[in-house]
């Protein structure tokens, strides 16, 4: 069953700091927003890559962590009631006959809007794929077999020979969770040490001591089997050389990396994976399609959060004229406008 398309003023691709602040600037102009982000929470790179790292160059905030900045932005935009579509990748964009845009996501969501704002940073976060020749032939092979970058149906791995690679929390957590139901479970990592939480490491060591998990300091060098049906891998260890290891499923957990993703297929003019925009409206060469933050490029561009905030403000003025062609834009200050203060819920 397909739900009816959502209709709104603006759809924003990317819920990082710039996409979030765009909600504020658009909201002051009474434009309603929907945001789509492949991650399961707001913040983009700020919360995915450096939630605990301090940022020192946000005007007025001498020191703020990535997570704190995102929390504050979420608080700041709360009055505007933006709708978030987390865990969804924007996959297709088309212009409708009435001039509005229709954005589709991989979850089947369809959003119709007057304006599209791409605030996607460097693109979408996707699992890192180990550089093993032919690995793609074993991806999407089906539940419980082949290569999986996430565990969606744990039960599908019951009775399988499972190989997990990595040394972070995901690798250790799934080693611990899948060991009881696997036929065999082997963990490989490039060193005999892990960045995962200590209690997880302890649990893994206990399973290893009990013979329920095998651990090797090794890496996957080759994969064997018919396409779609993994049979074995070649492991290479520091001391034992190379050997074959029987595996039905291979689960590499090396975190996420950023790929431009389907935006490249939207028909937007791109320059070295960036969207060229003008510096008055931050609009791409396609009218009604804007790009703000790290994803855009223009003479003098600096990839700074503060630049993205400025871009969001100017974009919003231009977006207003597209979404409300018959209305006059009244420029006001939040300090003095009781009208704006009402929207912010402070008066």
């Amino acid at each position, binding site marked *: 069953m397909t739900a009816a398309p959502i209709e709104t003023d603006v759809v924003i691709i990317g819920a990082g700091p710039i996409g979030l602040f765009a909600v504020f600037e658009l909201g002051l102009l009474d434009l309603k927003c929907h945001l789509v982000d492949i991650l399961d929470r707001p913040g983009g790179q700020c919360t995915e890559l*450096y939630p605990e790292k301090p940022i020192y160059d946000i005007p007025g905030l001498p020191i703020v962590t990535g997570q704190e900045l995102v929390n504050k932005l979420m608080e700041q935009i709360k009055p505007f009631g933006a709708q978030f579509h987390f865990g969804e990748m924007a996959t297709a964009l088309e212009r409708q006959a009435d001039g509005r845009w229709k954005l589709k996501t991989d979850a089947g969501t369809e959003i119709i809007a007057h304006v599209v704002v791409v605030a996607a940073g460097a693109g979408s976060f996707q699992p890192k794929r180990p550089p093993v020749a032919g690995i793609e032939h074993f991806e999407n092979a089906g539940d419980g077999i082949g290569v999986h970058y996430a565990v969606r149906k744990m039960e599908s791995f019951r009775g399988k020979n499972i190989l997990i690679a990595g040394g972070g929390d995901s690798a250790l957590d799934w080693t611990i969770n899948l060991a009881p139901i696997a036929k065999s479970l082997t963990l490989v990592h490039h060193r005999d040490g892990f960045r995962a939480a200590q209690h997880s490491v302890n649990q893994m060591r206990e399973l290893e001591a009990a013979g329920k998990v095998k651990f090797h300091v090794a890496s996957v060098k080759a994969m064997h089997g018919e396409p779609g049906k993994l049979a074995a891998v070649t492991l290479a260890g520091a001391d034992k050389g190379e050997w074959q290891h029987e595996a039905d499923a291979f689960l590499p957990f090396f975190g996420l*990396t950023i790929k431009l993703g389907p935006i490249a297929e939207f028909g937007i003019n791109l320059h070295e994976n960036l969207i060229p925009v003008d510096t008055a409206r931050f609009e791409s060469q396609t009218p009604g399609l804007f790009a703000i933050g790290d994803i855009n490029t223009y003479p003098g561009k600096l990839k700074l959060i503060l630049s993205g905030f400025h871009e969001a403000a100017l974009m919003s003025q231009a977006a207003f004229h597209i979404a409300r062609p018959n209305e006059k834009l009244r420029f006001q200050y939040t300090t003095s406008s009781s009208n704006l203060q009402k929207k912010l819920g402070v008066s």
Partner: protein
Amino acid sequence: MKIIGTDRQGNTKDVEGRDGWSVMEILRDAGFDIAAECGGACACATCHVYVTGDWYEKLPAPSEAEIDMLDMALAVEPGSSRLSCQIICSEATDGIQVTVAPE
């Protein structure tokens, strides 16, 4: 001070380092395909390089944070893998040989 950089296609070129800059910054500005997604904060492992020759031993040892972050890198080679944002150019690194690791 030179950096001898090799890209993923195996092309090698000499690049002039700058005192106090990271090897990541120098290689990226010289056109090497290094994502360096976090911008040099030792938070993403996408500036992973192999230090070759006897340069691994000559460099100051990686920090705990870098060793941890390397757990998120692909195709790590013990005794060679480093995050290039954590290698700082100086007279002591003149002639360092690095190869960009696979994506």
